[in-house]
């Protein structure tokens, strides 16, 4: 381990200033950052501890929206009565993430910033080539173990999967990331790898996530998060879907539909093609299954991850049909 300095930020502004210094990193629950420091991916020179900052762990839910402070714990948000009733997909995504111990430590801000589980990314000592870590160094994953890699949004430079669950639900419901005064839609906050896989988020040094805001909606109220994996718990998604639905007064015709995918793409993946194909239609199983195939349009596999292309549309279809049933 290298020496680093540790700084307890006195305020949000102080934290931002400190985080702007070269080599500085914010420390929240530490469940991502400490792991990455141990395997040599993160080499912070200064850790700016923000865990004690006041006023950043609130969970405010109204008719219009939910505003969740960046320091709110995953476990608290998952268990919040109003989040459960108005944004079930958000609660379910969090419940199915990581383990109880991690959810008790980890924060919402840190959760958005978690890094890929690509095993090559996390092993600099043995695999120097990784464009995400070292731009231009190459990609060790391509041609290697790719079972957990993305099939959507990949580039020649990087095929790493975005592993988180919460952000999938957030992108489905047009949530917005608050960086102090400025705000960025979640869909824009996460970047495609393209030729710059090292840049993952639309956030600059010296900026800090202060909250996320999720607009309330009928589709958010009637939503679910379905996560499929080999193990029952404590595993990242093989494929997952956040789905919300709003019917017309007839209770059958789809007025609004939200679909996002996890476990298959390089960022939380909004599947607008599926939404567009079904909006205005009557919910009907065959139509749902056919439309769900659009979720993986343009997908490319790297061998061992091919099954994700088969699996993801089925997960989407099941989630939509499940939401239809609960009329």
């Amino acid at each position, binding site marked *: 381990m290298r020496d680093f300095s540790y700084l307890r930020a006195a305020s949000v502004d102080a934290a931002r200033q400190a985080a702007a210094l070269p080599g500085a990193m914010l420390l929240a629950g530490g469940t991502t950052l400490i792991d990455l420091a141990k395997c040599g991916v993160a080499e912070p020179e200064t850790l700016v501890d923000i865990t004690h900052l006041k006023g950043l762990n609130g969970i405010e839910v109204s008719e219009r929206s939910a505003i969740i402070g960046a320091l709110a714990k995953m476990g608290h948000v998952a268990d919040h009565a109003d989040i459960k009733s108005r944004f079930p997909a958000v609660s379910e995504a969090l419940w199915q993430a990581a383990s109880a111990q991690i959810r008790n430590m980890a924060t919402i801000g840190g959760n958005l910033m978690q890094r890929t589980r690509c095993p090559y990314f996390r092993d600099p000592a043995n695999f120097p080539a990784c464009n995400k870590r070292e731009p231009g160094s190459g990609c060790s994953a391509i041609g290697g173990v790719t079972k957990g890699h993305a099939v959507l949004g990949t580039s020649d430079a990087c095929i790493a999967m975005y592993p988180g669950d919460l952000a999938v639900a957030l992108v489905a419901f047009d949530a917005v990331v608050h960086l102090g005064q400025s705000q960025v839609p979640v869909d824009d906050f996460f970047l495609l790898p393209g030729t710059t896989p090292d840049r993952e988020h639309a956030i600059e040094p010296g900026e800090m996530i202060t909250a996320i805001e999720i607009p309330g909606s009928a589709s958010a109220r009637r939503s679910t998060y379905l996560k499929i*994996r*080999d*193990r029952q*718990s404590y595993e990242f998604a093989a494929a997952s879907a956040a789905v919300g639905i709003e019917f017309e007064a007839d209770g059958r015709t789809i007025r609004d539909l939200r679909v996002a995918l996890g476990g298959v793409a390089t960022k939380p993946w909004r599947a607008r093609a599926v939404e567009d194909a079904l909006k205005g239609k009557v919910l009907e199983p065959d139509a749902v299954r056919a439309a769900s195939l659009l979720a993986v349009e343009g997908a490319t596999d790297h061998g061992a991850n091919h*099954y994700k292309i088969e699996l993801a549309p089925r997960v989407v279809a*099941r989630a939509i049909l499940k939401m239809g049933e609960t009329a």
Partner: protein
Amino acid sequence: MTLELSLNQQPAHARQGSSIGQPLTRRDGFLKVTGGARYAADNHPPGMLYAVLAVSSIARGRVAALDTEAAKAHKGVVEVMTPKNRPALAIDPDAKDNPFMFRLDLLQNDQVRYPNQSIAVVIAETLEAATEGAALLSPRYEALPARVGLDGAKSFVPRGVGIGGPAVQHKGDVETGLRSAKTRIEATYETPAQYHNAMEPHAIVVAWDGDRLSIDTPSQGLAMAQGRIAGLFGIAPENIHIRSPFLGGGFGSKGMISGPQVLGILAARLVGRPVKLVLRREQMYGPVGHRAPTRQTLRMGMDGEGRLTAIDHHARTASSTFDDFFEPAADASHTLYASPAIATSHDAVRLDTGTPLFMRAPGEATGSIALESAIDEAAHACGMDPLEFRLRNYAEVEPMTGKPFSSKALRECYRQAAETFGWASRPLQPRLMRDADGFLTGWGMGTATFPALMFQAEARAVLRSDGSGLMETGAQDMGQGAWTAFAQIAADGLGLDIDRVEFRAGSSDLPNAGIAGGSGHTATAGMAIHNAGAAVIARLADLATGNEASPLFGAGNEGVLARGGRLYRRDDESRGESYAEILMRAGLTEIEAHGKGAPDPASQETYAKHAHGAVFAEVKVDPDFGQIRVTRLVGAFAAGRVINPRLVRSQYYGGMIWGISFALHEEAITDRRSGRIQNANLAEYHVPVNADVPSVEALLVHEDDPYVNALGIKGVGEIGITGTAGAIANAVWHATGVRPRRFPIRIEDLLG
């Protein structure tokens, strides 16, 4: 080492009279749940330094350069040990006198033979400095291509498999048997490399004092470890004191002292100060053994009544390039099903991996999942219920040898487990059962078996004039409950209530208790304890029966009973006296005696000795996603005398859960280019979590075995995996109609 039972001296459920058979809770449980149990890495002798391994990135080649200067320049680093300055050893680490002597990587040269091989050790004042020092070594390599996979090298037939059994065996002529069969099946199954992954990493704390060594390290075989270290360093075994009161799991990987542990000893010698070395999780994927991958092909023939006419079981496995351990998977077909012709054979390839090793049910687990799957396929091919098929082919004598079984309550296991499970209502055809939520539901079964092994052990018993007793043996508690089960045997052996017995174990200065492995520890060390108890009671009885002042005078040794701290006349239990009275009258403060535990060679020749069991599994499979859940497991096991039903049940549960792990989760995934394992951590190397294990039931089937040993003990540590893994695979087939042939079974295998 005495167990420091500070607060819980009185185990719950202790009672007067016989201790054997009582469901005592673990005597060390309180210490463990309160953090009071001291594991090896918890020790911190004064002046101790931290040693951290630097391990190889490549699978094969040589280390061309190490920047030792950069490491040494790092603040806090005291020394860097490389092949250049590593202290001399008395023997070559590559020497091998016997199959249990595994070749070790102890910086003997610059060669690299597998990923994560030790290439240097950095010793520093702090763990952090040593860790950073190891990173600063920035090794340069001359690499050669890695040989990976079961087709990665030229195959050959090894000279022996497992602990030296023949690689190829047969009885009768399988080709004739297959030709004469009415129905035949042939199938190939693959099992992956698996790693022991004990919660507690291999750790060692070492202090040299001249030529004497003081060591804290987890060991499943203290005397063997002591002997190996003595040989390597050219010192007398009695100069080496190893303490191992608790292991955080071993599963075979702590059976032999490993290379990294010896490097800790070398590091302490080099710097002349005590040293602690603890493996990081990822460093456990290489130098401390693993379960080798297998590819197994089974051919079976059946006559018109569903009787087997032939079993042919071939296994391909792998060892390292420099040492021999060959997973004896095909041997699973020797003991379970009657057939006039049985052939088993192994071949192997040499890969650039660490040497594989015993891993909980080595050969039995890998062989069982293939054999039990094939039996299920054979039953289906004959249109028979899998249980009926197994009963039709029930082995009344050991199929390969024709020896009678010392005891075999397998029919009763089948009956009890099937009844509890509700097997009778199972439809024969697959994909016919669905639950209310639309999940495909399947039921499968497997037969469990494990040999009843015994090794060599000794114990020392003492009776004291205050009426208490002491039992000593260097036994090892890996978490299985040795502290409790052996104390129970000791109490009965000494004729004392358990709270009057002091039991010492877990230290190399106690009598050699043999190895905690092969499911033979309770039988072996238990018999040593039993015999030591009997011997000291005989001495006590001599004192009493030979003394006119004793109410036992003239009763003769055989005419005396020991119970509750008193000796009684067998013919008149109203006449007796306490141990304390006898010793006091004789003017003795204590008497002692020794006892041995070992297999009886005569009965070994005559009888086949195995534990048996039957496991039934229910799985539910999502028809769209191929996601598998094991919703119910029922096992019934007959393994001779049960010393402590609570502990025994826990062993079965643990084994059965490992069966889930084998069938559905565990797999080391190798990058074929580099030969490196890409999931060398517990986030990605999966074992079942609680949510994967909703309901497990283990039934204890009564079995008296007069031949295995005087106590009638077989073994319970490993059998639970066998049978279970196959039962789950068969249930998956019954649910889906898809026959799993590659393990673990994954979503992608069932997506269809």
